[in-house]
């Protein structure tokens, strides 16, 4: 399936880029005329995935994070967050609610929120090579005023 529109943004794993990433994703999704709730769900899911990369992927250095946005027919939005960092040894364990390898500043709810707020979530990771998180959400078609 070929996308009808794409955008890719790459940035350093600095926490200051978390807001930038979620706003960029929201701006890209705006062409689908989403509701405020849908935009908020997308921003939150992107924030979680990007924050995971920034917090966990590069423990002792700055690294690259790539945010890829793709639009498919029928208002399907696909968001991919990729890093080339330490990777996740046990993805199933990582996706367990409340599980975190971080300190007490982390709630361990990131993947749970991505799963709840998006339609689908896929996590692929190889320790030492990096992690790719792919999420999809279909934006509901809305009737315009007048019912057309």
């Amino acid at each position, binding site marked *: 399936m070929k996308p009808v529109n794409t955008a890719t943004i790459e940035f350093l794993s600095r926490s200051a880029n978390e807001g930038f990433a979620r706003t960029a994703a929201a701006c890209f999704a705006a062409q689908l005329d989403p509701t405020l709730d849908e935009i908020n769900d997308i921003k939150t899911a992107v924030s979680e995935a990007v924050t995971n990369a920034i917090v966990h992927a590069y423990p002792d250095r700055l690294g690259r994070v790539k945010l890829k946005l793709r639009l498919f027919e029928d208002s399907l939005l696909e968001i991919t967050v990729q890093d080339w960092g330490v990777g996740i040894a046990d993805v199933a364990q990582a996706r367990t609610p409340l599980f975190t390898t971080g300190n007490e*500043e982390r709630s361990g709810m990131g993947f749970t*929120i991505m799963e*709840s707020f998006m339609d689908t979530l896929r996590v692929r990771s190889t320790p030492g090579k990096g992690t790719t998180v792919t999420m999809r959400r279909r934006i509901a078609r809305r009737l315009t005023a007048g019912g057309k």
Partner: protein
Amino acid sequence: MGLTCTGGDREICMALSGEVDHHHARGLMTEIEREIDRELPKHVTLDLGGVTFMDSSGIAVVLRCYKRTAELGGAVTVKDVPPQAEKVLRAAGLERLMRFA
């Protein structure tokens, strides 16, 4: 991002504003803990009316406030939670731990 604290006599209100994400979370937690350690409150009202965005880092911030207050035998009420933040907090079931006003 900001924290405004009011009240006294062990009844305090802490109003958060701006984006509560990982980038801002540590600073917020430090200020909240400092305030709780100073006031030793019986009750904390966390006013989230000014929060423009929150992700799971916000869950950690609210939980930290709850834990430190509970250690003192106090309780937390969360008030004026915007819809986006409420959806995130309820994803963690926080309404079972503290009152949402």
